[in-house]
């Protein structure tokens, strides 16, 4: 039974809508407050970018669990192929903030010399490959890249992040086919938007679950809830671990809730994580304010520096 139309079906969950852990043992070793700060930083970055009114920019508010889980679980030798709503991966992966700002502002002083697609970032030093221009091409590139990793030996993974809109393209199916044929250490991370009033034809949904489609192709897959940051982290960490161990490709589908569409509060991954911390006595309004002010200040400085550096 669905509590509200905003609750996704068929998802594994670790943190329920009240912020209670289904399996407390699954979070051992995770610095929960540190993890929460990364989620908040991702949201603050999104708000900052919204205020800049960049051309062709799309908000990633509500998708923070995906960016933070990828940034947090990938190893130093792993690569991630991003789309145009994944800038927070750079934040978590340690791209210097002024460099991140220069990429997002598409300045000539940026590593990609201002040539990345709007909203995307690229950093060879931090093993982040920018978005591709042609529909779904980053999926095929990532499959080949993971294959290349495997040819050089075990232990490295490639992750590609994309939205469910790409799953109707030929490239999605061709990439699954190539990844399976060559048993590549590739993790597909698909962000599927939730449609509480039913999906429009443009969503091109084939059945309700991309994870099930991947499973039908013989691929290990998981479907989890983007409002549950710890569940998303668990699934992506498991997929990356499999890739490191040479166990082949996988797909993690994360059902994300666009915060811009005013969903119930428990659909916000940051609010759900806050409830968990609050329940454990690890959250205060002061902690919240300080965390937000800190990252806001850092980002403001970084964007100013990037613009000044670009002028110099």
């Amino acid at each position, binding site marked *: 039974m669905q509590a509200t139309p905003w609750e996704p079906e068929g998802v594994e969950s670790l943190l329920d809508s009240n912020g209670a852990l289904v399996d407390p043992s699954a979070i051992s070793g995770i610095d929960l407050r540190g993890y929460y700060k990364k989620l908040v930083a991702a949201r603050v970055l999104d708000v900052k970018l919204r205020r800049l009114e960049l051309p062709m920019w799309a908000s990633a508010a509500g998708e923070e669990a995906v960016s933070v889980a990828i940034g947090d679980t990938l190893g130093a030798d792993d690569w991630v192929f991003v789309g145009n709503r994944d800038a927070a991966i750079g934040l978590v992966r340690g791209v210097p903030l002024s460099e991140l700002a220069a990429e997002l502002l598409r300045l000539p002083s940026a590593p990609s010399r201002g*040539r990345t697609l709007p909203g995307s970032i690229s950093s060879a030093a931090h093993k982040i490959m920018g978005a591709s221009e*042609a529909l779904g091409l980053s999926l*095929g*590139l990532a499959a080949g890249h*993971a294959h290349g990793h495997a040819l*050089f030996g075990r232990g490295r993974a490639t992750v590609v992040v994309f939205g469910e809109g790409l799953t109707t393209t030929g*490239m999605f199916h*061709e*990439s699954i086919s*190539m990844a399976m044929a060559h048993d590549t250490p590739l993790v597909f991370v698909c962000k599927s938007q939730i449609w509480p009033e039913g999906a429009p034809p443009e969503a091109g949904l084939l059945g309700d679950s991309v994870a099930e489609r991947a499973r039908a192709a013989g691929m290990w897959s998981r479907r989890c809830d983007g409002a549950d940051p710890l569940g998303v982290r668990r699934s992506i960490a498991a997929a990356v671990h499999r890739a490191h161990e040479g166990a082949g490709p996988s797909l993690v589908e994360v059902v994300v809730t666009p915060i811009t569409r005013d969903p119930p509060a428990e659909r916000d991954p940051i609010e759900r994580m806050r409830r968990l911390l609050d329940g454990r006595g690890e959250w205060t309004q002061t902690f919240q304010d300080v965390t937000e002010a800190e990252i806001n200040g850092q980002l403001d400085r970084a964007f100013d520096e990037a613009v000044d550096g670009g002028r110099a």
Partner: protein
Amino acid sequence: MSALQPLAKLVAALLREDDRRCLLGEDVRSGGMLGLSRVAAEDDQLRARLLGSPLTGAGLIAHTGGLALAGLRPIVLLPSAAALLEGLPALRELGRLGWRSGDQHGVPALFVAPDGPGFGIGGDAAESAEPTLTAIPGVQVWCAGRSEDLCGYLRSAAEFPSADQPSGPRVLLLPRSVIVRDLMTNVDLDAGLSRAPTAVLREGDRATVFAWGSALAPALAAADACAKQSGIQVNVVELGCLAPLDEGLLVKLANATGKLVIAHAGPRRGGVGAELAALLADHSILHLDAPIIRVTGEADLLAGHEEHLASPTAAAIAAAITKVVHY
């Protein structure tokens, strides 16, 4: 013996020389459609780098780009240049990938594809793909001409600069009519091209003939015939690098005689010949003593029994030479 056998030996040698190289394509593990991976497939040491691939269009090309990004030097053996047209979005992406990254990355990948008429099956397999391929930014397009140069072309095309000089992907077109022709000479598999792909193959001062691919042999035959029958000596330039064009060299060669013939397979409109004619009209107009004549294939779509119409004959090229010389 056709050139396919030495080419197959060379493919294996290229893999042995550099373990970053790998082969992709349908059936490469069992020799590939043209047998180009047959020698490599018999070598147990190389089999791990023969990456047989499921039938995909853009997927294979994108996959190749990913392998190159990961540090490999993939060589893709395609059944036809038409496969590159089917995977066009991916080839476009590979062409611009280095640029978009601010030159943080290169894509040192080689696509080897039979092109143009020669197998007698018409349709796609008589089509010359270079007009589309040469219009893609960031993709180098080479086209081999003479059968004795095929191995030199392959070896040189497989060489990429070191990783600190990012380079884009390269396409090597092998004209079907040339790869099925009997190869009369022994080929040194260790030798690359001793010259740039675009170079003067025969010298003369009365006219300049630009030709490539399956039109090169007829162009050389036409030049011989003109010399023998009328004492007319012409320059024959092989246009082996179709993109990017060496514009300075081509203008210089055009200026030297002022009488120009362009010969190539495939249709007249919208192709490399048209681009070359426009380039020379722009830059050599004060040196031209006759209109530029293009001698090309006669139609876009051809059945197998019409393939002779896809490429110009030596007689047609000789007639064009005579016309410009006596203009």
